[in-house]
């Protein structure tokens, strides 16, 4: 094992803060101690690899959401000067996307109470309360169904609006990307249909409900990313567009 008394010297040498006398002492030791030399070289490589970690790019949707929140809070004003090519449409889409994000957020908020209630309902079934009258069960089923329907309606409205914007502008995308997006949307549609059937069979199943909402959320995200991609293509921002395509 590495020698404990040289550990600090190894770190300080990597940091470049070691004094000349201790450096000489360390170098002499490293010549003789294989374990310490291995440790020193490994830590030096880790230090160098950390310093070389590349900058990450935030997902394109992050900016759309920030812009949406700023609009919602009334903290920005529309620019009145002549827009660059596609700028007018871009701003319009931003507004649409922002509004839709709010709609989706509202849908998620609607889900939460249902999810929060669900475990209590499950616990109740395993306790003496399980003997509660059938009317209570019926009420729970009706309540769960209503919550699911309301949340689904919010999602579906958001999806319909996003699809409208995406379809109207999809010609900006190259055919291969467009086909891939359509294929993925088809897969998600199938998942949504299957999960919807599962929820219908058992409206109080938390797992079925969460899986359905996750599928709906994924569709919203895919459509938002598609609109972001169209925006970036319009702006000629190939790097951001490539990032979105790679993410997909």
């Amino acid at each position, binding site marked *: *094992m590495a020698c404990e008394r040289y550990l600090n010297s190894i770190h300080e040498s990597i940091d470049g803060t070691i004094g000349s006398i201790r450096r000489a002492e360390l170098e002499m030791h490293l010549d003789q101690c294989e374990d310490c030399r291995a440790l020193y070289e490994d*830590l030096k490589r880790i230090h160098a690899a*950390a310093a070389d970690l590349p900058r*990450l*790019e935030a997902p394109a949707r992050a900016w759309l959401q920030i*812009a949406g929140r700023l609009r919602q809070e009334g903290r920005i004003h529309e*620019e009145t000067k002549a827009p660059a090519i596609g700028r007018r449409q871009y*701003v319009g889409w931003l507004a649409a996307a922002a509004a839709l994000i709010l709609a989706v957020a509202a849908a998620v908020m609607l889900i939460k109470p249902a999810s929060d209630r669900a475990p209590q309902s499950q616990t109740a079934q395993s306790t003496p309360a399980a003997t509660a009258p059938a009317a209570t069960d019926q009420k729970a089923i009706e309540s769960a169904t209503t919550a699911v329907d309301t949340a689904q309606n919010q999602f579906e409205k958001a999806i319909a609006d996003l699809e409208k914007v995406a379809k109207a502008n999809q010609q900006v995308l190259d055919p291969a990307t467009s086909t891939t997006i359509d294929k993925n949307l088809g897969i998600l549609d199938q998942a949504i249909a299957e999960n919807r059937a599962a929820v219908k069979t058992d409206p109080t199943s938390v797992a079925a409900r969460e899986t359905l909402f996750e599928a709906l959320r994924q569709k919203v995200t895919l459509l938002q990313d598609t609109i972001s991609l169209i925006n970036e293509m319009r702006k000629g921002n190939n790097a951001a567009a490539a990032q979105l395509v790679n993410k997909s």
Partner: protein
Amino acid sequence: MSGQRGVTMATSKETELDLVERCRRGELGAFETLYRQHSGRLFSLAVRMLGNPADAEDLLQEIFLSAHRKLESFRGESALGTWLYRLATNQILDHVRSRAARTGQMTDGLDDATLLADASGHRLADRAIARVDLERALAELPEGCRAAFVLHDVEGLEHKEVSEVLGIAEGTSKSQVHKARLRLRGLLRRSV
């Protein structure tokens, strides 16, 4: 934060103040420019400090919304990038502390036996350390030593600066970075 890597300002101070003024007037385009200039650096910092890209994305939004609100107080005494970096670091750390308070894991959480094992044994494979392996290992570090390591080894801050940012003693910063390096060695050996 003299030790920061990559704090090169693409714009002159005059242009920067002009950009800030346009943001204050509510020009979305100006704020988007500011966002494009700085979001990558701040997102990278958030991902690595939090060890979770989804949390980092949410926090990035909060950072820029907060920056938009606080631009009124920006006087140009420091570069805009530095001002944003400080704002972001404070918000990230608040988030880390709040999460740690919930989970009780803000301490470095590394026992001596683990570190001893990390300092011993066979060396890393000769091939280059893959970025993805390093990012994954970073995410596995305990909160306290991950923050110190990211600020020091990834972001390039000096220990004195790390100690000021984290509100800890300089010696503690050193100790946490050293522990993080040893733990990373252990984790990277496992990933080979």
